[in-house]
């Protein structure tokens, strides 16, 4: 592992002497993306502001190349650490190129006149983040996605080694979120930038971070690779999710399960049941699902939403016990819905289940009017 450029030492951050987070441990390494996650108000911004010296540490230090940033000159710090902040600047009569070139501030002379080299850096930064065509547009008249990229180009113009970003993808649509983070990945790699950012999009944090820091209720709760952080129900606990849940492996949310005696029994599998589980949840109909092999794509969603779920060991025919339970359970439901089209060799138990339902006239089609009328 390479040496960190920026690290913290026994750092406590907060406002005017009042500690918000104690024991902030952070080491930013070139080429790596470090992401801060945690609930609203946990103090992610407070940490980031302290790193860029917009807040004084309550105690401890932020070290840039092992030197305390508190003693660095403004210019020196600006040449090493650049930021994209949550503040949304609304400069008057400034083109995007004007905004980007303000990043040359620490390099220009007394009057801030751009040299040939400054202009070249600005041009290259704009090309790198693909905003060259916005050059002469008014900064106040571009979209949120474009604005974030222009601000990123501005930060790159400072030729920093550390890039600090506070929720850079909020307000962006999904395409621009992905574009922005892919760009960041590329920048981190090509320019050996140490990147630290806060994100609310957990799925993106999981996929784009090298290191994840979890901030909760006044402390750094966990630090680890995405693989270490996004597992089990840790994220659900980190955010104190009460209604619904977060699937750490798939990176998706499910809303709250409908409780009550199951009315519908769903025979799904291979992902075919997922839309129906979600529809039943929306309609407020409690349901049961089964029999699903434990490795089936339906299982995580069914587990989150179904009142009862019957599973069987993967790659094996469903055992007798599972079949009996499923038959009993489905018999107590007012309807059975089957979303699979073909039953494979190890799935004959489910065929029997569906045939039994058909025999007693309880087999419903997935778009049966009974489902809708229940609301």
């Amino acid at each position, binding site marked *: 592992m390479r040496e960190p450029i920026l690290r913290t030492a026994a750092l406590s951050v907060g406002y005017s002497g009042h500690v918000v987070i104690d024991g902030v441990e952070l080491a930013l390494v070139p080429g790596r993306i470090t992401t801060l996650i945690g609930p609203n108000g946990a103090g992610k911004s407070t940490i980031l502001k302290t790193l*860029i*010296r*917009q807040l004084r540490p309550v105690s401890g230090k932020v070290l840039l190349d092992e030197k305390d940033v508190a003693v660095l000159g*403004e*210019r020196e*710090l*600006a*040449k090493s*650490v*650049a*930021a994209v*902040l949550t*503040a949304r*600047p609304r*400069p*008057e*009569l*400034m083109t995007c*190129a*004007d*905004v980007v070139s*303000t*990043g040359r*501030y*620490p390099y*220009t002379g*007394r*009057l*801030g*006149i751009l040299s040939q080299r400054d202009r070249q850096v600005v041009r290259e930064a704009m090309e790198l983040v693909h905003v060259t065509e916005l*050059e*002469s547009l008014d900064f*106040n*008249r571009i979209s949120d996605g474009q604005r974030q990229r222009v601000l990123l180009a501005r930060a790159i113009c*400072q030729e920093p080694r550390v890039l600090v970003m506070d929720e850079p993808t909020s307000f962006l649509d999904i395409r621009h979120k992905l574009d922005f983070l892919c760009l960041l990945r590329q920048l981190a790699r090509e320019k050996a930038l140490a990147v630290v950012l806060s994100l609310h999009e957990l799925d993106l944090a999981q996929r784009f971070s090298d290191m994840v820091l979890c901030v909760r209720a006044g402390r750094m709760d966990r630090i680890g690779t995405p693989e270490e952080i996004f597992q089990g129900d840790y994220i659900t606990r980190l955010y104190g999710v009460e209604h619904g849940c977060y699937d750490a492996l798939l990176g998706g949310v499910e809303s709250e399960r409908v409780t009550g005696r199951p009315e519908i029994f769903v025979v799904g599998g291979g992902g075919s049941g997922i839309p129906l589980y979600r529809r039943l949840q929306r309609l407020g109909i409690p349901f049961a699902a089964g029999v699903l092999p434990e490795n089936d794509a339906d299982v995580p969603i069914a587990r989150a939403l179904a009142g009862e779920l019957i599973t069987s060991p993967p790659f094996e025919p469903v055992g007798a016990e599972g079949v009996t339970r499923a038959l009993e359970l489905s018999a107590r439901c007012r309807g059975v819905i089957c979303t699979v089209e073909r039953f494979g060799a190890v799935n004959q138990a489910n065929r029997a289940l569906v045939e039994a339902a058909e025999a007693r006239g309880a087999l419903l089609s997935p778009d049966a009017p009974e489902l809708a009328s229940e609301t």
Partner: protein
Amino acid sequence: MDEKRKLRCTVCFLLLAALLAVLLVVNVMAGSARLELGEVVRILLNREGDNAAIIWGIRLPRLLTAALLGGALSVSGFLLQTFFANPIAGPFVLGISSSAKLVVALTMIFSLAHGLAVSSLTMVLAAFLGAMLSMGAILLVSARLRSMSLLIVCGVMIGYICSAITDIVVTFASDSNIVNLHNWSLGSFSGREWGDVRIEAVVVLAALVLAFLLSKPMGAYQLGESYARNMGVNVTRFRVELILLSSVLSACVTAFAGPISFVGIAVPHLMKTLFRTARPILMIPACFLGGAVFCLLCDLIARTLFAPTELSISSVTAVFGVPVVIWMLLKRQRSKEGEA
């Protein structure tokens, strides 16, 4: 694009310079004693002739005062607008002019009552003290209030209080001084002597140069305080410098010409529209020239429109300045709606 911008700025500067030259000449010629251009040139070159006293003693100091102080007001407005990130901030709206006026009035009355002569330097210092007082009050308020419109309301209120106290003081001042004080408290470029002009020139030009040297951090500050800080601006020091400079400029104006309204808001806006940029490095000289042109024009109107009766300069600047301010507010509202 860059070439086009440069061309535009050059043309605008030349235009302003030409307007300034024309207005300077017209201001010398026009007045109750109408002078021919030839005579003016002769008198300026030889300093003698029948009307030499009018030109050298009255008109030149007056027009130089109008040009210098007009420029100072606009630059002061531009600095305050940058500081507060608010286009309607200005020395008059924030109550700075009025509180400078109050302290100057108190100083004058106190000195006259004790039989002391008031030197122009004392006036400037008194005005600066007044400006700093209301600036301090505004800063205290702005630390608590994030809302810019409330800040402006506070400024206007401070202005009213100071004007009211000044009026009361003037009402009870001893008779002999009232006329003098009354004219001044309405705002006028008249009655300046060469000694005053010298002090005006030194103070205004020095502040102008210093403001120009601040144009780089000002440009960064236009992106907001946090970005400026990240770019390496020492924000605390910068803010102090900006406040001191804008206060010195508006104090100097108030000391010599009384409170003059709307120049500080209208001229920077006109210049931004004309130059199509808000870059401080261009706007500071542009505002200075523009303010000089604006005030020379307003002063010309003030003293010639109903001659021999002279209008107060503030009445004229308000008549021309207010429509500009309203136009600006409407335009901003429209552009905001356009974005939404």
